[in-house]
C-alpha cells in the first residue's frame, strides 16, 4: 500500500568494537496503524530494516522500564509513546543522557541501580512482626500512592541536570523510593535511611528543576518526595 505514511527515525548508533565515533543513522519507518507506538517502529527497524540495531525491551506495556529512551530531547518509554503524539515526522532517538552508553541505545544502568540500593529501599523493622499482617489503615496506605508505582526505568534520573553534573548524586528515583519507605506506617528505618539522604550528594543537591516530573512515564512526582524528605530532615533536626 503506497498510501501509508512514513516517518524518519534518526537513531544513535555506536558499537565499541567497530566504531570509533558514535553516529546517527536514518531509517524510514512505515506507519502501519493509527496510534502506532514507538516500540513497534523500533521493532520494525530491527526486524525489517537493520537487524544490527540494539536496544532494550521487555514487557512492551510500560511496566518493566527497560525501554526508557531520549526521543526528540525528552526521556520517555518507547512502548507507551504513540508516534503521532510526538507531532513530528522526524524523530531523533538517543540513549538516556547522563548514563554511559554500552551500545546503540543500550546504556549502563548498574550505577543507577547502585544508587537506588544505597538508600536502603526495603522495609526495616526494629520490633518483632505480629503473627498476622501489619494493620495499616487505608489512609496510611493512601500515602504510598504516587510513590510505589515507580518502574525503575531511569527516565527521571537521567533527565536531571544535577544527575548529569554530579556522578555521585543519588537522583530522583532513589529519593522517590526512599520516601516510599520513610512514610510507610510499617517502617522503622528512618534513622538508618535519613543520614544517607542528608548528604551533599543527597536531597540538598536537588535544584527543583522538575525535569524528573516532566519525564516520568508514570506521572509520579519525585520532587514532592524530595521536598518531603527535606521537611523530614528539618523536623528531626539533622
Amino acid at each position, binding site marked *: 500500500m503506497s498510501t501509508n505514511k512514513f516517518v524518519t527515525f534518526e537513531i544513535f548508533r555506536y558499537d565499541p568494537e567497530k566504531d570509533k565515533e558514535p553516529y546517527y543513522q536514518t531509517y524510514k519507518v512505515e506507519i502501519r496503524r493509527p496510534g502506532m507506538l514507538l516500540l513497534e517502529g523500533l521493532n520494525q527497524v530491527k526486524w525489517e530494516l537493520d537487524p544490527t540495531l540494539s536496544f532494550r525491551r521487555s514487557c512492551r506495556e510500560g511496566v518493566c522500564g527497560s525501554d526508557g529512551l531520549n526521543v526528540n530531547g525528552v526521556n520517555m518509554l518507547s512502548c507507551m509513546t504513540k508516534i503521532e503524539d510526538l507531532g513530528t515526522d522526524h524523530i531523533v532517538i538517543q540513549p538516556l543522557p547522563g548514563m554511559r552508553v554500552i551500545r546503540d541505545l543500550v546504556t549502563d544502568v548498574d550505577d543507577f541501580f547502585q544508587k537506588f540500593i544505597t538508600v536502603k529501599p526495603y522495609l526495616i523493622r526494629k520490633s518483632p512482626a505480629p503473627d498476622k499482617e501489619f494493620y495499616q489503615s487505608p489512609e496510611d496506605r493512601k500515602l504510598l500512592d504516587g510513590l510505589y508505582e515507580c518502574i525503575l526505568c531511569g527516565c527521571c534520573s537521567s533527565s536531571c541536570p544535577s544527575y548529569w553534573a554530579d556522578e555521585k548524586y543519588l537522583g530522583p528515583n532513589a529519593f522517590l523510593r526512599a520516601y516510599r519507605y520513610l512514610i510507610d506506617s510499617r517502617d522503622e528505618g528512618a534513622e538508618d535511611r535519613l543520614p544517607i539522604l542528608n548528604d551533599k550528594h543527597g536531597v540538598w543537591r536537588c535544584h527543583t528543576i522538575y525535569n524528573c516530573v*516532566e519525564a516520568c512515564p508514570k506521572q509520579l512526582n519525585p520532587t514532592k518526595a524530595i521536598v518531603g524528605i527535606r521537611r523530614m530532615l528539618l523536623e528531626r533536626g539533622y
Partner: protein
Amino acid sequence: MVEDNELNFTGVCKIKYKGCKMPRKDLVTYPKKVSYKKHTGMTAWLLHRISGVILGLYLLLHIFGKAGYADWFGALTGNAIARIIVLVAFVYHAFNGFRIVLIDFSNGAEKEVFSKQFMVVVLLTIVVTIIGAIPLFS
C-alpha cells in the same frame, strides 16, 4: 554501614574497547544531536542561574565601587541598559526564588501548580520591572 548496601551486580563495566577511540567518560558526554528539551522548570532554573550570576557580580562590584576600588564601575552602572538588566535580573531572581521557597514550604511541588506559578513569576517580573523602570528613567 553504608557499604552494606553495595549491589552485588557482576559482569558489568568491563567492555573491551577494541579499536574504540572514545574514552569511557566521553560515552556519557558524547555530543548530542538534540539537547534535552527545556521544560518550564528547566527554563526557570537556567534563568535563575543566569540572573543570579548577574546579581552576584553586580553586588560584589557595587561594594568594591563604593569602597573606591573600581571607579569604572560607577560609569558602567550609570548606563540605563545595564540598570534595566540588573533590575530585571533582581525582580526575576526574587520572585522565582520565592517560588522555590514555596515549593519547599508549601504545596508548590504539585505538577499542576508549578507551571502556573512560573507564569505568575514571569508576569510579576514584567509588571514590576515596568514599574521599577519608571524612576530609573525619570
